[in-house]
């Protein structure tokens, strides 16, 4: 902040801009209603809403591919599609879900909307770059989708060479699309880092930042530091596809393991690009719905940075079976397990927060419970995987698929749904039906378990991933998994219906319906265009400052 703004009182020389004293401040939703006022907006809130719409759409596309895959595996032989279509379907499922949903979803939609509000700022540092990053995402998506309609790709989302440079499917446009999406991710990350450094309102010190902001900050650091390497490796693969340079092709003296190093140097940290934001969301929600100050604020904040840091040194655990030396395997195993330590710090602090809290069991809290379970279960299977000797039989089986869906998809989806419900009143000024919220949360959590627990068992029994046909004896579990996926889809469908309904017919929400102490609730719901009306809120408490219910009586009695 500038030196003059260190005090909380209004800056003496600040002249109110013309028009600042009108009584009526329209919310950002209605301040300008033309299509252009949305498409070219520089308002972080509108950009966040547009992100939300698009990532939901991408989620739908990815989900349809998932159902194709799942229904194909209903019987041991061919079921609904041919083998090549199946390969394209699981590839596009992975590409769409990872690059177009999981990575941009929480930072793009909720990060954009909430970060400036939580920092008491009027906007992100670079509003134009913010809009650009949305359009880069859409541009990249358009190119990738064009590629996928004109041939598709059958390499799996990991694009392993030399297969990806030899397949006859259209790899180049899809990789190029992913390359552009990478720029979008870098732009968002860069913007958030600068915003956090420069836009904090007076009174918001580093240790008074909401934990969601800490999580977004740590995520942004990974986005900025890891994505360029992915960009380069995608370019090299595109070049190699078009010109057969042979950089990664063993037939021409190239080294496919180098591809794996470069790819996982991004993609392992990328899993934290996906889950760190969910950790942030959950820290907010657990405090709000336990009505307690977050236990171990600093530990939770620093563990995000810790995860971001050690996440850069763990990539080798994807290559335990690529011929790396036993020594390397050992080093990567230990470094990988360190990630588990930092995650455990968070888990213990969340549990400590709930302990003896006055829990308000609303929909977001239901998702928090699911989240805790998926994180612990999925994380434990990760630690098991990090044990190199266990990885060898499990590698590239359904056990891997189940592991990363539990932790990455499970945790992220729980957080995304929790955030959607928690911030729905803030973003749209409407409330939704609590009963339907709880029903669909139960359905989704149940569906998730029913989908992926059978996959753990399948993997353990030796069913490889990415196979079109399988022996008879795996069928029962596959049927169970497909039924789970159907349940899951129903849960999302119900949510889509009642949230859309609430958007139109929902009751008007108060400014702070959850009685939260989060900074984003200090303004109206939905917020006005410049976020705050009148004098800026005063920040003199910690962001999650709830009175401990046990001690609440004491000050009252005095």
């Amino acid at each position, binding site marked *: 902040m500038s030196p003059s703004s260190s005090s909380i009182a209004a800056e003496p020389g600040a*002249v109110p801009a013309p028009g600042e004293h009108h009584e009526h401040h329209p919310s950002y939703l209605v301040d300008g209603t033309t299509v252009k006022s949305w498409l070219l907006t520089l308002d972080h809130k509108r950009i966040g809403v547009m992100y939300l719409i698009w990532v939901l759409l991408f989620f739908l596309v990815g989900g349809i591919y998932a159902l194709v895959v799942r229904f194909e595996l209903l019987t041991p032989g061919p079921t609904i599609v041919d083998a090549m279509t199946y390969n394209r379907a699981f590839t596009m499922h992975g590409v769409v879900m990872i690059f177009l949903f999981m990575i941009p979803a929480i930072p793009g939609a909720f990060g954009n909307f909430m970060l400036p509000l939580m920092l008491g700022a009027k906007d992100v540092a670079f509003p134009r770059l913010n809009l650009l990053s949305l359009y880069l995402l859409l541009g990249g998506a358009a190119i990738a989708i064009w590629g996928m309609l004109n041939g598709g790709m059958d390499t799996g989302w990991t694009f392993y060479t030399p297969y990806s440079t030899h397949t006859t499917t259209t790899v180049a446009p899809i990789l190029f699309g992913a390359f552009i999406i990478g720029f979008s991710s870098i732009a968002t990350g860069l913007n958030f880092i600068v915003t956090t450094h420069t836009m904090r309102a007076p009174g918001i010190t580093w240790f008074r930042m909401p934990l969601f902001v800490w999580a977004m900050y740590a995520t942004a650091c990974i986005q900025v*530091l890891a994505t360029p390497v992915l960009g*380069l490796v995608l370019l090299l693969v595109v070049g190699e596809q078009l010109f057969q340079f042979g950089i990664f092709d063993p037939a021409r003296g190239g080294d496919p393991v180098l591809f794996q190093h470069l790819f996982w140097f991004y993609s392992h940290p990328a899993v934290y690009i996906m889950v760190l934001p969910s950790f942030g969301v959950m820290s907010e929600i657990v405090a709000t719905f336990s009505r307690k100050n977050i236990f171990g604020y600093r530990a939770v904040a620093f563990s995000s940075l810790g995860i971001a840091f050690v996440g850069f040194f763990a990539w080798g655990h994807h290559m335990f079976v690529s011929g790396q030396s036993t020594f390397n395997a050992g080093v990567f195993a230990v470094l990988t397990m360190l990630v588990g330590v930092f995650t455990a710090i968070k888990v213990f602090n969340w549990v400590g927060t709930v302990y003896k809290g006055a829990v308000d069991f609303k929909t977001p809290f239901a998702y928090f419970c699911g989240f805790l379970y998926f994180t612990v279960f999925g994380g434990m299977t990760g630690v098991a995987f990090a044990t190199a000797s266990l990885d060898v039989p499990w590698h590239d089986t359904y056990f891997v698929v189940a592991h990363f869906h539990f932790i990455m998809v499970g945790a992220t989806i729980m957080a995304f749904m929790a955030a959607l419900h928690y911030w729905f009143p803030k973003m749209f000024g409407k409330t939704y039906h609590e009963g339907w919220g709880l029903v669909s949360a139960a359905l989704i959590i149940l569906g998730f378990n029913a989908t992926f627990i059978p996959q753990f068992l399948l993997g353990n029994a030796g069913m490889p991933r990415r196979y079109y046909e399988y022996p008879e004896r795996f069928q029962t579990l596959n049927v169970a998994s497909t039924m789970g996926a159907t349940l899951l889809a129903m849960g999302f469908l119900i949510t889509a219906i009642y949230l859309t309904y609430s958007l139109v017919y929902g009751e008007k929400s108060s400014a702070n319906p959850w009685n939260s102490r989060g900074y984003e609730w200090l303004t109206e719901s939905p917020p006005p265009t410049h976020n705050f009306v009148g004098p800026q809120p005063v920040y003199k408490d910690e962001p999650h400052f709830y009175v401990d219910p046990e001690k609440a009586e004491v000050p009252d009695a005095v």
Partner: protein
Amino acid sequence: MQSSSAAPAHHAPGVPPVPTVAAHFASLDVQQHAARLGMWLFLATEILLFAGLFVCYANYRFMFPDGFAAASRHLDLTLGTINTLVLITSSFTAAMAVHYAKEAKNRQVVVMFILTILMALGFLVIKYFEYSHKIHVGQLPGPYFTDPEPSLQVAGVPMYFTIYFLSTGLHGFHVIIGMIVLAWVGFKANRNEFSARNYTAVELGSMYWHLVDLVWIFLFPMLYLI
């Protein structure tokens, strides 16, 4: 506090207007701090982009030490050295532009940027001669390598030229982007847009140019010297 504008009501005629602060920034200082921080982060991502190529180089140099040594002896050290000097000098003129901008000497800023761009052009011309020689004798990437020269019939030589063309090509692309950026900032300087208080664009433009220089300072020894 977030005030919306810092423009005073009066300023002497002829003196460039004091810059306005975008509505969402608390003050000009904060705005400039943000711009600089953003640029540093962006430059970090650029370095990381090239870092991937450096890793490729290191890996293959390790795999084919003889091929890489043989091939690097076939680069034109004289032209490479001249180009290094040209770029270092251009980095100096870019720095001078910032120096003049701080003193609100817009005219000199324009001159310095023109000099910088001319040297960038010189760099590209020299690069053009280097490339056309390589193409002529067939020292080309991977499967296109056709040079019959006996000392180049070593495993790894085509890979060396793959990396050579990829990294100098990517660098050359950055040179062109840099020229465009400097031309645009120079154009603004020509319109007297900068003052002693607000010269962020000049600073950021020349920071970008230093990056282009810096990357070359790594590429030159990597490709030509060792």
